[in-house]
Each structure stands twice: as C-alpha cells, then as structure tokens.
C-alpha cells in the first residue's frame, strides 16, 4: 500500500458521507485558481525564455540568477509602483472594470475544469471545484465574457486606437466563437456527454485528437484567435494600433489586463489537453506510468503552451479582413464537416 493510497484512504475517512462539502470546494477552488495563476506566471517566464531561444536571444538573465527567475517579481514591483493614470476622456467605470471582467471570466472558467478522476471504494471523486453535467457548455458561455472585457477597454479608453481594437475584437469573436463552439459540440457528440469528466473518460481508449484531427486543428486555430495570440493578435497589433485595447492602460491596471491574457491562455491550454489530448489518461501505448492524473494534465498543458509560444515565434500576423475570411469561409464549413464526421463515428461507437 503506497503512501498516496494511505492519504487517500484517510481523506475518504475524514470526508466520508459528504465528500464535496462546500468548504472543501472552497479550498479546492483556491488551490486551482492559485495553480492556474502560477501556471500563468510560468507561462510568462516560459514565453520569455523559449521565445528568446527561438529568436536567438537570451531572455531574462539578470534578476534572480543566470536564468532570470525573479524577473516576474521585479516586473510586478515595477507595475505596482507606477502611477495609475485614467485618461480624462475615458469612461471611468468601463475603464476600471475592463481588466476585472477579463480576469473574472478566466476565474469562472477554472471552476469546472477537472484535473483527475479518483475512484475510491466505488465512489467517483472528480478533482474539480464543481462538477456539472453541462460543464463544457458553461465553459463556452463564460469564455465569451472575456470579449466584453476587451470591448469595455476599447470603448472606455476614449482612444481611437483602442476603439478600433475593440471593433476588431468583436469581428474576430463573432467569426471564431462559432467554429470553436461547433468543434466543442463535435467532441461532446463523440463522447455522448457535455460533462468534461465524461469527455475525458471517453478518451481512455483513443484520444479525440486521433478520432477527429480536423476538429483539433479547427479548435486550435479558433482558440488562438480567441486568445488573441499571433497570428491573430490584431487587437493589440503594435505597429498598427500601438497596444490596441490596452493603449491607455498603465501600471498594475495594465498588468491585470496582461495577466488576464496569460490566464486565459493557460485555461485554453488546459481545455485542449482535457478535451483533445486525453486529460489524465496516460499516453496511448505506454499507459500512465503510474503517475497521478494531475501530472499528466499539467504535462500536456505545458506542451500545448509550448506549441502556442512556438507558433508565436514562427508566424507573422494576419490582417483583420483575412482573419474574418478564414473564420467564416474556411473554419466554419470545415467545423460543420467535422461535426458530421463526429456524429457518424459517435453513433458507430455507441
């Protein structure tokens, strides 16, 4: 009997009868939000280092030793000590609220993300703040809130650059939420469930990236567009719109908006690893090597994040009309095709 088993047994003993008491969920929620926050910090650091590697530069290397490990802390101190400027022409409450809305939608998404499924004495314990029957639907719904944050920033800043970025954001959101939604539906159809835990469990034999590669590509592209990363960073295209919707932000308010982006990116990577890369299931042939599922989820998430960074290093930016073209004329028909494919395969499996 391993140490983990003993701990699990004692946990079951302590919480027997009411395994998901509200206060446990509270602790779990704190842990998960903290974890994703930490993940976002790791992603910022990884992005600097790995992108530096791609671009043949060193990246942070002064603060905190040779590897610049404390660079983020130095940055945070700098941001906190900067003057907080609210432009005279800004709509104050929209301006203040925008980063908060953006970050909150990330927090809301985290609530339903499962990290592992433990089966102890016949009971299923999903390591998630909350397990819903329709968690994927909920996820899709709250992820749309982030766009409101960006549009509030674009409109509320009282700057033409921000406003153009807000317009672009809306155009992009309309074009890409649809293929994103359709490819999520394809996954749900194949798994016969809207519950992410069930979706991951359905991948125990074959991952959905193999069952519907087209869906994965569409989801990946639409996700990149949703996250506003290169080649879809038209909303903050530096050479066109200065910093896009974030042009007028400064200090920690900007830091919050910046951080919200990375938070969303980590959540996005988590979703990819859960619904396409088998979540806590191990690798197809070698199995899970006796490692806990959480490790597998994190491993896959980091891999997806690395791919995000790699894409950023390798591609130029599309123009906004080309982005819309791609969304409506290519991704949407392909997503529908993929839905048909997923339905047929899903029915055959059933």
């Amino acid at each position, binding site marked *: 009997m391993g140490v983990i088993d003993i701990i699990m047994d004692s946990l079951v003993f302590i919480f027997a009868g009411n395994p998901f008491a509200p206060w446990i969920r509270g602790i779990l929620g704190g842990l998960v939000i903290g974890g994703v926050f930490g993940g976002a910090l790791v992603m910022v650091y990884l992005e600097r280092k790995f992108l530096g590697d*791609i*671009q*043949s*530069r060193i990246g942070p290397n002064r603060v905190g030793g040779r590897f610049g490990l404390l660079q983020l802390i130095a940055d945070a101190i700098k941001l906190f000590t900067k003057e907080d400027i609210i432009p005279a022409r800004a709509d104050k409450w929209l301006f203040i609220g925008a980063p908060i809305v953006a970050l909150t939608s990330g927090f809301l998404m985290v609530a339903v993300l499962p990290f592992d499924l433990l089966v102890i004495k016949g009971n299923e314990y999903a390591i998630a703040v909350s397990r819903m029957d329709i968690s994927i639907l909920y996820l899709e719904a709250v992820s749309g809130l982030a766009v409101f944050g960006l549009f509030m920033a674009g409109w509320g800043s009282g700057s*033409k*650059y921000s406003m*153009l970025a807000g*317009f*672009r954001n809306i155009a992009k959101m309309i074009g890409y939420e649809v293929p994103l939604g359709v490819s999520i539906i394809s996954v749900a159809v194949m798994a016969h469930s809207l519950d992410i835990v069930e979706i991951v469990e359905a991948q125990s034999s074959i991952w959905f990236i193999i069952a519907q590669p087209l869906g994965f590509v569409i989801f990946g592209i639409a996700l990149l567009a949703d996250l506003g990363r*290169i*080649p879809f*960073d*038209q909303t903050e*295209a*530096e*050479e*066109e*719109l*200065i910093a896009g919707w974030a042009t007028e932000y400064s200090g920690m308010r900007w830091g919050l908006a910046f951080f919200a982006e990375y938070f969303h990116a980590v959540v996005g990577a988590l979703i990819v690893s859960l619904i396409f890369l088998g979540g806590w299931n191990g690798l197809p042939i070698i199995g899970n090597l006796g490692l806990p599922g959480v490790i597998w989820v994190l491993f896959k998430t980091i891999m997806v994040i690395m791919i995000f960074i790699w894409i950023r*290093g*390798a*591609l*130029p*930016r*599309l*123009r*906004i*009309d*080309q982005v819309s073209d791609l969304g409506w004329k290519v991704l949407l028909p392909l997503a529908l095709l993929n839905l048909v494919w997923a339905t047929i395969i899903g029915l055959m499996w059933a």
Partner: protein
Amino acid sequence: MTHKATQITSPTKPSEILLHLGPQHPLQPGPFLLDLKIEGETIKEAELKIGYIHKGMEKVFEDRTYIQILPLADRICYLASNSNNDVYCRGVEELLGIEPTERAKYLRVITNELCRIQSHLLGIGEYTTDVGFLTMFLYMIREREGVVSLLEAITGSRLNHNYARFGGVANDLPPGYKEMALKTLGELKKLVKSHDEMMSSDSIYLSRTKGVGVLTAKQAGELGVAGPPLRASGVEYDLRRMEPYLVYNELDFKVITQTDGDVFSRVKVRLLEILESIYIIEQCLDQIPSGPYKQDVMPYITRPKSGEVYSRIEDPRGEMGMYIISDGSDKPYRFRIRGPAFATAQALPPLLIGSYVADVAAIAASMDSCTSEVDR
C-alpha cells in the same frame, strides 16, 4: 496622373474618423505625422506631415569648412553614412580636380556595399516587425551584427563611419581582413538565402504582402522614387550601372528588378541585392590593387576653385545627390542635398489610399524611408 500635395479633409459622415498616426508611433523609424481619414478599416485620405526633427543641415554645411562637413555628412542618415560621405567626397574631389587613388576606390566600394547590406538588413528587419514577424527582425539584427563588425574593422566605428577623405580614405584594410570578410559574408549568404526561402513560402506572409501597396513604374517616376522601390516596379534604374562611379565599371553585377511593385517585391529586391552586394565585395577583395590608400600630398586647407558640381550615388534607399557651389573660399557657398528618402516618403500617401489600416505599417516599412534623412 498627377500627384498634388494631398490635404486631408475633415470627416463628413459619422462612420468616418480621423486617425493621427504619429508623431510618435511604434511603426515609425523617426517622428512624422501621418493623418488618415478612415472608414471602418479602409483608408479614404492620407496626408504626411514632416519636419519634426528638421536639422537644417544644408545651412549648417554652408557655415563649415569642407573638412568639417565630412563627419556631419555621415549624420544625414546613419544607415547610409558611408554613401553620404562618399558622395560628398566625390563632389569635392571633382571641384578640386583630383582623383582618389585606385586602392581607395576599391576600399570605398567595399565599405559602400557593406553599408548597403547592413541598411537593407535593418530595413527588412523593421519591415518584418511591422507585419508582426518579430522573429525575423531579430534574425536580421543578428546577421547585421557581423556586417557591422566588418565595417568596424575597417573604419573603427559601427554606425557613423566617417571613412572617406578627399582623394582617399582614412585608413587601410586591417591585416587578415580578406579571410575574415569572406567567412562572415559566406555565412551571411547562406542565411539570407534561407530567409528568402522562408519569406517566399510562408502563406500568411504572402497573403499579407502580395498585391499590397502597388507602386507602378509610372507613379514611381512621377514621384521621384528611386532605389529598391523603383526597381521593384520593374525599372532597371541603378546609378552603379548607368553612371558607373568609382570602380563599378570593372565589376560584374546584376541590377535586381522585380515586376509587381508591391510590398513583397520591394522586400525581395532588397534581399537579392544583399546577395549581389556580397558578390561585389568578393570581387573587390580579389581585385584590389596594392598601393597608397590616400593622396601623398594634400593641401592643408581645402579651397576648391569656384564652380559648381552635382555628384550622385546609388544609396541603399535610392539616389542620393549633393549639389555644391564653391566661391573659392574654404566653405561651400551653397549646399543642396537631394535625398532618396524624401521621395519615398512623398510616395507614401498615394499608396495608402484604399488600403487597410493594417497595411499602413507594411507599406510604410517596405518603402524603407528614413525620417532623419527626410528632415535633414
């Protein structure tokens, strides 16, 4: 088609807005103001306003002795400092009625071509950031470092070289220079070829650049555009070929042209010109004669006979000309600079009309204008 100085009108419809790009904006190499009237993302009218860093160089030159102008001529545009210096020296040499020594001519060609390479590398780099391709910018900067080091080895400085002198150059090649240069340039050739391949095959890059900002040969001629933007429109106009100065008539090189005149062609011309410049330098290093690199005896004070001269050169950005009138004193009576970047800058507003806001950066950077030179 004539090009009047466009004046922007104030928006009439509620869907139109006036967008001021500048005078400080991330897309700009230096301060200028680009006023755009846009509807949605489409540009309706464009107006370029320059003069934010006007330095009054021509007037300053008229108050300096000929030798004092030498280092100042560098500062017209730091990316073309060698060409500026060379064209000034050739003007004064013509007034003085002397010729640089044979070795000095070769040395000037070598430094001019190195200068062209580093200018093109930075130009392409700036341009790639403007289409959101930061990685390529850093690659270009990395490649440029080697070329700048080669220039530094000859001239002793990295940017404002101040190398040419009346009748010669400041100093000779350092020992072992040929091997060093051939090694660096050989590597550069491979890297530029691979970058060219990458930029000709990336589908996103192609869709951003093909058919964008088309400058026809006729338009270019009317606006006085020369250099890579003109050659990208299919005109074989290169002063090194048409009016061979220094030793260009003894060298073998192609004049690079493209036919489309769009953003892609302009950048392609620069990429291929880098390879051609490397070829020229290799020939020069082979053929360079031994002998003095400067005139043995030069007068202590440069006092050309009265007269006037117009000397011109194929600058990295186009045709650079200097018109000098001497009244026999030690200072020029009148000095006039015809800069290439001014013409490329004035070609920008007509190109922008009808394109998207997102293309402003790509088109402006592909013209490779230099604000420092526009506002000389």
